[in-house]
């Protein structure tokens, strides 16, 4: 820091503290602390106001061209088309859906369910999660950890989960990790129909990376990134 800057800081401190305290506070708490003024990534050029305005204009134009015009958020909320009805908010109603989902998962994974690995991961990335048995395992917000149940809606930023005792919970995907389980039959094939499932296939889904609508996820290619915050 330049001398003038140093003097200015000390002067400010001296208005409230004795000279000894000024020296102590400056040398311990201010002198070697870095001051972050502006986030360093993404670089400022990408965020210039002009490019932002242009992008916005183009998006509005593209939206106007759609026929029939999609409902606005206000209209959707008022019509309540996508909400889960009150009578439907019972855990028992969704258990058959859960069984269907397990069957679907076993079908698309095939032999990968026993080996796991990148093949299974590629299939899972475009799989559908409605009806999955899920538990929130890790989250930046401590209140969300431990919520377990069946997925009722998989929206763009939020996962709606119906729990056994507490009704429908809306869990934001940001900063949250979900753990999904699939019951897999014993690898020897189904000799006796009454044999209990001996293995469970468990996988974690990182919510930060999954902030896409489930319909759009089918065609999306996921690249491998280095995740600093994990």
């Amino acid at each position, binding site marked *: 820091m330049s001398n003038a800057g140093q003097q200015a800081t000390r002067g400010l401190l001296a208005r409230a503290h004795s000279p000894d305290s000024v020296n102590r506070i400056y040398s*311990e708490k201010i002198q*070697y*602390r870095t001051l972050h003024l502006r986030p360093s990534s993404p670089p400022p050029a990408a965020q210039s106001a002009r490019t932002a305005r242009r992008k916005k204009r183009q998006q509005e134009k593209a939206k106007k061209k759609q026929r029939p015009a999609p409902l606005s958020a206000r209209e959707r909320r008022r019509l309540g088309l996508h909400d889960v009805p009150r009578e439907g908010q019972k855990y028992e109603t969704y258990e058959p859906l859960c069984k269907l989902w397990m069957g679907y998962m076993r079908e698309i994974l095939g032999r990968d369910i026993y080996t796991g690995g990148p093949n299974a991961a590629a299939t899972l990335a475009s799989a559908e999660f409605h009806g999955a048995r899920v538990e929130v395992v890790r989250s930046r917000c401590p209140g969300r*950890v431990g919520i377990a149940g069946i997925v009722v809606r998989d929206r763009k930023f939020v996962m709606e989960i119906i729990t056994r005792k507490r009704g429908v919970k809306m869990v934001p995907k940001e900063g949250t990790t979900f753990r999904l389980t699939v019951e897999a039959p014993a690898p020897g094939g189904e000799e006796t129909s009454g044999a209990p499932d001996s293995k469970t296939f468990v996988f974690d889904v990182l919510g930060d990376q999954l902030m896409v609508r489930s319909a759009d996820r089918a065609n999306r290619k996921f690249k491998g990134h280095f995740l600093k915050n*994990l």
Partner: protein
Amino acid sequence: MLLKAPPSVYQAPKCFVTYGSMGHTDTKQLPRRSKPWSTLMGLGFIHREIYEMLRHHLVVENPPPSYYRVTMSLEQVLQGDFFTEYIKRGNILMLSEGTDSVDNMFTLREGVLTMYLDKETYERAGLVGKPHGAKGNRGLKPRWVVSYDLRSPSMLRGKKGFDRLVYASKKVLNQPLAWLFCNIAESTPHPDPLQQHYPAKFTSSPGVAEVLEVSPVAISVPSSTLAEGDRPDLEMVASDLYEWLSLIRLESPRVRAGDHVDPYLSRYRAPGDASGQMVVCRVSWQGFISTQWVRGLLAALVTKCPPQAWFSLNATEFAKNIYATGNEISLVRPQGASDEYLMWEIKSTE
């Protein structure tokens, strides 16, 4: 892609010097609120404890402190007889293995369970806590502190807050750790819930009572300094005295009478003039000691030591940082003034 090292603003340990007077000490009802007693109780887990005095050493009747080392998981601490007998009804002190700035560490003191967790464990545990460590990390990995008052009536099985803690201890914090355990309450419950976990008992017997002959030093603060309230002078006298006492504690050859060392190696001179001899005796304890025991020791010293003799007491906490320096308290009762004391508190921040 370079990952930044976590910021650490080094703050030097601070030493606070106090000169005060002690009132009459009643051994049945030990004082709590006044200094130096309140500062003594403010220490956490004491690791080492030393006292020195002039001439013959006092037979101290306090029973030597005993502690156990036991391997338990957090879940076992929170359930069953151990929880009801020791935590809810009794008074214990527990310290787990680990360093609080590197891995997960737990402490239990006066019924308050404090957990020092790293970011991933905290996010998986789902317990509410506060950030811990140097401020000013943007996007880097902070550490977290979570604390629970286990003696409050809401900490029972079946209540939501406690159930979340138990869930976390079953799923996330479920590794067995080595703990140090010290029972402060006078009685142990029958049958002892601790014995199920096969503890190893340790008793810290008083260390070798060293008797040293040293060159005499006046253990007192000149009355002119006190009368005038001369701070720089008090600082000098107090620093010299603290240095001399630390050298005695380390059993350094420099303080012995008749020590001749090449001035190229050491130019230390004890404060005061150096003719004659003085006999000093040093007794030490090392282990997992509670502040109540130290308080009892101090009361015994104050009441049993002859009024004209001086004594000094030093208690050090467990080290929490990489430099291996913990908080420390040193107390000296000067010769000639039997109701006054000079105290140094050394506090090192995180």
